[in-house]
């Protein structure tokens, strides 16, 4: 016992005294103090409740052209399951018209056409009716839709007759009413046997000071009490802190947060079936205490706010940054502990250090997981998922850096840091994908237990693997540090033989031909030298053949880990509707697993330049070596781009419309060009600062340029692919400007244009390398 205590005491002393850890603590302290303040005091708010699950895009009509074509064809289409009437106005400038104020407005389709069209889609189960088509409800246009499950209506004013019309739609499960004036009784809805979810929201309507029949008044809540099948209720008014009054009225507006919560606590207390209630806001302390009061009165009901504070979102990001840095700190400590022979030869060394690090890792995970629910009111399982995900991805990132380190690429591992800073800057502070805060946000909307469990299990497995993988660090390092030296030696020996042949090139053509053949044999022998085991002959490992003295293990681990995790995330995202709801998990996973890991081979070019110098001094053509470097980068990037393309195609096939042969062909061609551009850009950024500045500036600027350059290159490629696919992928994007971009990017002429750009970039990069590299 005393022995064990001494051992762990010793380890903790090693950790505590380490200056790196003091720096880490200092950074964490700064974040802890200043982190929540990042982004300033903003009170932007958003919906905090789940939307009705919509059908897949391929079964959905949101596009004016598709809608018009369907009407023109006049054939019944049973595959269409969803229709958004607010999006089927014309986006084309040809169909625009000037309104009274002389502004261009989309042409509104005549009601007759819509009524006729709806009849053509008998299997509609999701419908959104905007205010300009709201009058159709009373005409009975939707009464025959026996599969209709979700209806979302928007109206400045909803009358009793409208509610009666809704009550005729017996198959409704989810009903959302966006209005400021509910002039009718919800008791009509009691006749809907399947109604499970009711959302009453102010929607996109602006607040008015004119007295109206508030949809949040006591009578309405009383009526809700009579909806016996209702399980989920959302009461989402305008954010009104404190008590407000309509002009000339002495009665407080029932939409006021405190009033609404008091009324709900009183009137919904005995609801027979209610399980979940999203109500009001939780931005201010009194609003949070109001929520707690409602929860007390409604003991069997899960209570959440319908509004969420963006400030909270930003605090989450800062908190997760804190966790990410902690994880990286653990990784750094492991790197130093396991890089010496004692890691292998001192008894119990690895096991003790791993246990100690895992204890710290999981201690942080537990503390953070318990802490997050205290200020975000998300469930514990969701909190565990978020925390383990952030810690796991940070550890994975550090592990990738460590692999570079092991193959002697210390410069590369340092260059990765600005890349990481650029990539993760948005992850910590941004408000859209791939922000980590989105994970918190996602779970603020709902519990999603399957997602939470899967994410937690995957992340824990990845982190466990990463920590375990450090144990053989010394062995890998020893092996890898010797191999490149031998590779260079082999190169030198072959090069010396080749030099004799090289001299003959100026004598006669036959000798020159022989020399060329000798060169070919030389490269072949180099390839054979590096492919001494069966695994390295596989297509995936071909990139290693061009890695002069590189380590196949790096590629194996990177590809294996990254893509297995991506496939897993994709599966989870698809099965849990994440892709349909904006793909938060997918987006975050994509960012942290694909982009981060694939930035590493690009940065690796930077470090290879040093070893390249030895090879360039050999009596052989410099251009050949540079071509090899280009080919190597192109191949590595190409694999990543093509795998990403395959994943994108799969998503398209599953979620949107079928993939055609032409699209695949075009995509592959485009991907090759994109690969070429990315290769060129990254190699330009690598070579640019050489010989331009003194050693200090050269180092700092090159690190910065490589970091930012690779980030920009990856972002450009991502944008290119994104825009290229937009025409097929995101039919709901009907913004005029976007439509123009889509039309432009989808045009066939974009392919030859991209080819020209690719050639220019690659030729420019090659020329720059020829001119600058060790010139």
């Amino acid at each position, binding site marked *: 016992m005393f022995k064990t205590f*001494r*051992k762990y005491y010793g380890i903790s002393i*090693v950790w505590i*005294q380490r200056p790196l850890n003091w720096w880490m603590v200092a950074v964490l302290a700064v974040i802890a103090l200043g982190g929540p303040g990042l982004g300033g005091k903003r009170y932007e708010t958003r919906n905090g409740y789940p939307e009705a699950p919509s059908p897949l895009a391929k079964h959905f009509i949101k596009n004016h052209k598709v809608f018009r074509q369907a009407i023109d064809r006049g054939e019944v289409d049973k595959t269409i399951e969803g229709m958004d009437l607010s999006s089927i106005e014309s986006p084309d400038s040809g169909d625009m018209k000037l309104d009274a104020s002389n502004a261009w407005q989309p042409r509104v389709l005549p009601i007759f056409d819509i009524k006729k069209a709806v009849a053509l889609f008998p299997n509609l189960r999701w419908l959104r009716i905007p205010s300009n088509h709201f009058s159709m409800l009373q005409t009975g246009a939707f009464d025959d839709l026996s599969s209709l499950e979700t209806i979302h209506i928007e109206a400045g004013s909803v009358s009793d007759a409208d509610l009666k019309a809704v009550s005729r739609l017996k198959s409704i499960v989810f009903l959302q009413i966006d209005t400021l004036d509910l002039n009718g009784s919800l008791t009509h809805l009691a006749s809907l046997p399947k109604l499970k979810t009711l959302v009453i929201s102010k929607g996109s309507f602006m607040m008015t000071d004119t007295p109206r029949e508030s949809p949040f008044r006591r009578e309405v809540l009383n009526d809700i009490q009579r909806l016996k099948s209702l399980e989920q209720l959302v009461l989402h008014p305008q954010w009104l802190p404190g008590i407000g009054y309509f002009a000339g009225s002495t009665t407080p507006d029932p939409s006021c947060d405190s009033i609404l919560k008091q009324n709900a606590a009183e009137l919904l207390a005995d609801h027979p079936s209610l399980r979940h209630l999203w109500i009001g806001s939780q931005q201010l302390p009194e609003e949070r205490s109001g929520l707690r009061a409602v929860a007390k009165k409604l003991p069997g009901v899960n209570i959440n706010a319908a509004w969420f504070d963006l400030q909270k979102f930003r605090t989450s990001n800062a908190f997760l940054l804190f966790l990410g840095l902690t994880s990286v700190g653990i990784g750094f400590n492991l790197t130093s502990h396991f890089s010496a*022979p004692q890691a292998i*030869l001192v008894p119990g060394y690895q096991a003790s250090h791993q246990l100690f690090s895992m204890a710290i890792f999981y201690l942080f995970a537990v503390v953070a997981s318990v802490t997050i629910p205290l200020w975000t009111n998300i469930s514990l399982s969701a909190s565990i998922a978020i925390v383990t995900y952030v810690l796991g991805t940070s550890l994975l990132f550090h592990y990738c850096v460590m692999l570079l380190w092991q193959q002697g690429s210390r410069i590369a591992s340092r260059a990765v840091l600005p890349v990481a800073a650029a990539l993760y800057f948005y992850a910590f502070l941004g408000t859209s994908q791939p922000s980590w805060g989105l994970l918190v946000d996602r779970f603020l909307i709902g519990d999603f237990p399957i997602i939470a469990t899967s994410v937690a299990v995957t992340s824990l497995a990845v982190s466990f693997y990463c920590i375990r993988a450090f144990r053989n660090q010394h062995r890998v390092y*020893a092996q890898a540090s010797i*191999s490149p030296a031998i590779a260079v030696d082999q190169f030198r020996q072959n090069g010396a033989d080749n030099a004799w042949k090289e001299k003959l090139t100026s004598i006669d053509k036959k000798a020159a031909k022989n020399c060329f053949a000798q060169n070919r044999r030389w490269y072949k022998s180099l390839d054979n030298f*590096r492919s001494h085991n069966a695994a390295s002959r596989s297509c995936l490992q071909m990139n290693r053949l061009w890695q002069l003295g590189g380590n196949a293990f790096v590629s194996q681990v990177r590809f294996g880990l990254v893509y297995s995790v991506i496939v897993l995330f994709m599966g989870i995202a698809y099965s849990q509707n994440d892709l349909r709801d904006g793909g938060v998990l997918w987006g975050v996973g994509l960012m942290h697993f694909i982009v981060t890991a694939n930035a590493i081979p690009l940065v690796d070019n930077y470090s290879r330049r040093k070893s390249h110098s030895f090879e360039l001094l050999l009596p052989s053509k410099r251009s050949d070596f540079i071509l090899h470097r280009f080919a190597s980068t192109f191949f590595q990037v190409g694999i990543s781009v093509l795998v990403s393309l395959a994943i994108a195609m799969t998503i398209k096939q599953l979620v949107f419309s079928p993939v055609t042969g032409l699209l695949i062909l075009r995509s592959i061609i485009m991907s090759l060009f994109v690969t070429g551009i990315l290769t060129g850009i990254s190699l330009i950024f690598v070579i640019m600062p050489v010989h331009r500045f003194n050693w200090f500036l050269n180092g700092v600027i090159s690190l910065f340029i490589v970091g930012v350059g690779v980030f920009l290159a990856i972002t450009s490629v991502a944008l290119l692919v994104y825009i290229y696919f937009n025409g097929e992928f995101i039919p709901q994007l009907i913004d005029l400007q976007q439509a123009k971009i889509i039309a432009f990017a989808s045009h066939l002429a974009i392919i030859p244009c991209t080819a020209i750009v690719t050639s220019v970039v690659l030729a420019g990069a090659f020329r720059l390398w020829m001119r600058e590299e060790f010139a």
Partner: protein
Amino acid sequence: MNGPIIKCEQLGKRFGKLEVLRSVDLTIPQGAIVGLLGSNGSGKSTLIKCLLGLLRISSGTASVLDENPWDLSAAGKNRLGYVPQVVHLYPWMKVQQVVDYTSAFYERWDFKWTLEVMQMLEVDGSKWIKTLSTGQLQRLAIILAFGHRPDLLVLDEPAASLDPGGRRALMRSLLEMNRDQGQTVLFSTHITSDLERVASHVAILGNGLVEYFGEIDELKESVKRIRIQSDQDLPTQFTIPGILHSNVTGSTAVVSLAKCSDSLISDIEKQWSATVTVEDLNLEEIFLEMSDV
């Protein structure tokens, strides 16, 4: 354990196509102090790393303390001490802290003995690691490897950075441990005088294999240099069984022999009507003759 403490048969290690160790056969008995000699790049460090499981062997077999070196158990590691060529320690800690920290991992750590070695090697426990010179770091590494009184001590060029005093102290402690406990020592070195002082056996590594392994006295007894003064001119391609190196000038020849015996001397005298003088060689001269440098 009565068998050999280190045994390897046909051990090979290659990096890609380059074979560093071809076929190493080596059996080190318990209680031996073995000096590993070899020119630069002959594979001494690689052999040591293979024997300690720091590198995976490519072919053949090896056993250390009756275990596979790649999967050494905690019990095996408790009986093993290693002084690496390059010492990695924590610069932010003090010497005594590192000693205490390391001692906690071992089942039996002799604090009294550690203190003695520290005094012998003149290492100050209150010093920060970052302030130590390369030689002082090497001394500390030796202390850390000695502290648990291992049954097998492996040292990779331990005296390379030590001053004469440090080397003397190291050799003395090696001899003391060997005398008191019958400890086995394998150490690689280029300083043959040290080796001559303490080693009971010598292994000479070259061309990827062990070219000679045996007791040091036996080697010195066997390898000799002879001077031949004949009445007639000797042939340029002068050959004798077991010849290592020869230099013929007219009727005089200086020849190094791997196995020199009285009968061989008398045969030479008879065959060439010559006078033969036999010279003893020190270990450095033997190594140079054997490695054909």
